[in-house]
């Protein structure tokens, strides 16, 4: 028995059919794993098994501090989504509850190399010429 129910697994697998580029998921945990790190890791292991395009690398936040630093990871559990480059997508904490939708959609978007924004919104965002740091703080529901 995995974490995902059969019905949910089918939904995710179905959505992942749209993925036509490789996606790498980096997950940062530590040797003595906290429960929330373990939950995140198990969930990502299951998700990454649902598409050949997705690979998962589990890293140690302490032992591989340099790698964590390189990706700007300063707390765990951390989930990093990478495509041809780093798009800056990070999840801190278990991406469960409603955020599970967001995690799956983000993996799909990275896999398609397309964030699915309309032309008008893309044009607005094109005016930005400096790095922007966004933190969306959510609660488990």
């Amino acid at each position: 028995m995995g974490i995902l129910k059969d019905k949910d697994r089918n939904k995710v697998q179905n959505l992942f059919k749209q993925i036509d580029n490789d996606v790498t998921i980096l997950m940062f945990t530590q040797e003595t794993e906290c429960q929330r790190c373990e939950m995140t890791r198990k969930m990502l292991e299951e998700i990454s098994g649902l598409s050949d395009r997705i690979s998962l690398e589990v890293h140690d936040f302490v032992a591989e501090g340099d790698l964590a630093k390189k990706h700007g990871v300063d707390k765990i559990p951390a989930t990093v989504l990478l495509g041809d480059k780093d798009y800056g997508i990070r999840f801190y904490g278990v991406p469960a509850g409603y955020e599970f939708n967001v995690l799956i959609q983000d993996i799909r978007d990275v896999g398609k190399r397309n964030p699915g924004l309309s032309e008008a919104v893309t044009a607005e965002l094109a005016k930005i010429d400096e790095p922007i740091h966004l933190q969306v703080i959510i609660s488990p529901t």
Partner: protein
Amino acid sequence: MDFPSFSLDTSLLEEANEPDPEITYDLLILGGGPAAMSAAVYAARKMMNLAIITKDFGGQVRETSEVENWLGFQSINAKDLADSFEEHVKSFGIPVSLGRAITEVKKQGDTFRVWTDDATVYSSRTIILSTGKRHRLLNVPGEQELVGRGLAYCATCDAPFFKGKKVVVAGGGNSAFTTVLDLVKVEAEVTLINFIKGWQADGPLQKRVEQTGTVSMLDYRQIVKIEGKDKVTGVVVKNRESEKEEKLKTDGVFVEIGLLPNNQSVKDLVELNDQGEVIVDCTCQTSVQGLYAAGDVTTVPHKQIVIAAGEGAKAALSAYSYLVNKSLL
């Protein structure tokens, strides 16, 4: 492996197609609450070519915790009820535009055009406006600046942030009393303030609040200012009898003083009553041919989930008859 309180929501993963701006639909449904969703089910079963434009699904149902008057269920979790509505709608594969706000609806000849805030324009022969209502504001200094910084409009969403804190609830009706009970559950110290003399809430609700024995209830008082720089620190309350003002320290303010109809997109197109509600006849027809309205945004009294759902069904069937009579279906 069992983890505590571990749930995975997959409600957004049912892929819906985007509506096509090149197509003239039979019906566009604006909104995503019970009226809109019920209309969608009825229209889909009539094989109408339809699409839905909404910011999200569930409407105000998502702002409450338990529903105790949906026929067939003595009590049902509001999120479960909204999810089951959504799943029903999505089973028809109706195209949905999510995450865009509707800015304007116009009628050009026999065709309606709907503008969204990213400049997309959709076309349709009929419209069901079911955009619902939004929370009415106090319109006092400090309110706009402090939203989400101690000032809240949804107890189900935000009550947990006020565990053990001092909170003022503005209002005197059912929603204000329900909010008080949600806050008492998280051990907040609650003061209820009502503009008019007495309380409008139903008897049983009033009784439950009185039984807590911890809520201070002040009526015939007006909140004239919300104080705080980065977060709410207090309110200024005017006693309407003595005209005296006093400061009350508080960590939070929940505003539950009623709702306003989301009529912005049609306010220059259809007739509204003095409260801004869209005037409809008993077939859900507005003052504009082919434009129907259903749910809380309309003049139909008693804003209830079951009534909104019924009205939505009626609006869809009316739109269907309209197209059949015009030989457009």
